[in-house]
């Protein structure tokens, strides 16, 4: 199943910023391993995928404003201007999370004639061989077994136990 995951541009854009929560949700639903695998790929392209996400969902604006007002008092006006602009930049980064995939959709590259080089056309495409090597998530060696609950791979009874005890349905131990 997870062999059929498509390239980046078929993933939906709104996901990127909520990877961890999505991942937890996806992992919790045993019939949705493809979603879990997708979320994991998303996580590989995000920054500080763990607590940062929680912090993003929290209302963090207050602390930024506070930060600014402290600086208004303490710093010279030139510096203050800088801080305010910086706060604005960070705020916009948070409030309007324009992801590349959103911009890509807007660009509507599919409508270009096929001979025109574009981001989409440059994608390398699927590998010629579909064989996928699986490595044990516990120890890294060749893994022949799949966890029925979360779809993660392991190589032996010993690693399965470690997986079940500490990792299954958790992204990190």
């Amino acid at each position, binding site marked *: 199943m997870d062999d059929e995951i498509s390239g980046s541009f078929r993933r939906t854009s709104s996901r990127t910023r909520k990877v961890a929560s999505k991942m937890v949700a996806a992992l919790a639903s045993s019939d949705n391993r493809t979603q879990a695998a997708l979320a994991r790929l998303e996580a590989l*392209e995000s920054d500080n995928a763990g607590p940062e996400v929680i912090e993003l969902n929290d209302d963090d604006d207050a602390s930024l404003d*506070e930060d600014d007002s402290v600086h208004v008092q303490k710093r010279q006006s030139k510096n203050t201007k800088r801080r305010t602009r910086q706060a*604005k930049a*960070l705020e916009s980064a948070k409030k309007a999370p324009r992801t590349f995939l959103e911009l890509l959709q807007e660009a509507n590259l599919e409508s270009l004639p096929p001979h025109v080089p574009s981001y989409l056309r440059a*994608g390398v495409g699927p590998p010629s061989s579909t064989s996928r090597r*699986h490595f044990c998530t516990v*120890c890294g060696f060749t893994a022949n077994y799949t966890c029925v609950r979360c779809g993660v791979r392991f190589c032996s009874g010993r690693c399965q136990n470690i997986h079940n005890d500490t990792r299954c349905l958790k992204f990190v131990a």
Partner: protein
Amino acid sequence: MSFDDSFPPFLESIKSLLEGKLFFVTKEREQGRGSGKWREMPNVVVLDNGGGLCKAGIGGDNNPTAVVPNCLGRPSASKKWLVADQLQACEDLTSATLRRPFDRGYLINPDLQKEVWDRVFRSLLHVDPTASSLLLVEPLFNLPSIQRSTDEIVFEDFGFRSLYVADSPSLVHLYEASHRPDGLLSKAQCSLVVDSGFSFTHAAPVLQNFTINYAVKRFDLGGKALTNYLKELVSYRSINVMDETFLIDDVKEKLCFVSLNVSRDLQIARRRGKDNLFRCTYVLPDGVTHMKGFVKDLDEAQRYLTLPDETLPQPVEKKEDGHPEFSEKPEERKRIDLTKTEFTLTNERFLVPEMIFHPADLGMNQAGLAECIVRAVNSCHPHLHPVLYESIILTGGSTLFPGFAKRLEKELRPLVPDNYQVKITTQEDPILGVWRGGSLLASSPDFEEMCVTKSEYEELGSIRCRRRFFH
């Protein structure tokens, strides 16, 4: 958008550049520095604006003035956001929150980018943008909307006098061709540039200093995903480092390498004690005596280099299901975890860079590096195929892993017709190579003529100006 067949005027200048006139110009500039003469020639700021690192300096120089993270970060113990070089200077970046202007290799947040550039131009380069030109290196296939917002930052926010936009493969080719004037690369005027960057890897054929856009192939894996993958493995196996981007970047850079024989190396990695040539230990920062992590025993970490390339050394027979990593009882393991000040790595060291060669192992439905190269070459005219395979240049931070070029050759050889040679060279400095090419171009005699000026931008707008750059 279509490729214009007419020869652009600046090809001439590149030709003269390759013939060595450039070095004269560079010299002249250096001599002119500090005297009145310098003033007549405005600065060209050369900016290789990567998703991970921002490389910036003055055209004509040998090296960039600033190589800084292209991001803002806030240390966990602080409320203050640090920009670019301030992050490098920061002592404790444990669990720092990061904000990057780039997503998937493209500039998506102009406001954050302005912050980084402001810091770079004013505090690090000490240039006045309104008195300077800008040579900006942009990712291939940049979207028109992103180009528009980039032009806005360049001309409206910073007020640069003029702008030239280049892509990395053509600059890498330019640099290599000018440094090896007798090589095949220069004579045939073509090469295949492999740029493994922060969020993606491109295989790009270059002909007569132009990237052959219709033949470029990309897969979506670069240094960022590798670092995140290593975080995942270490977090699964020893200690939670999911938020430690800077720390794991360091681990990756110091300890990862490309295996020349994965199944053999997996076997070696299960051995116990001294027979395990891959085992090494990384010490975590303790926040008291050392603020940065480090490799515990460098000699131990280097032992894998004694391995022969191909043959399996006499296997030391161990119990088939022996799991040296988990020989302790589970309770013991947990107790150790709680007081962990270091972690060991074995097969992670090569399983991480392995993904560049087989993204399918991660569940990505994309071909790996060797096939990516073959598909790029096959998209070119057959006459070019033998020359391209013989002029492969590696650039970008992810090509720095020991064993990278050797492994690539091993994977590529069976895919290339027997009568063609495969020759792969890594740039002298794969992180700075693009910038250095840009520095060369910026010091060519008619660089200014190639640029779009601020008034042209104001008159014609972004889209019409961009047509001049041929991509």
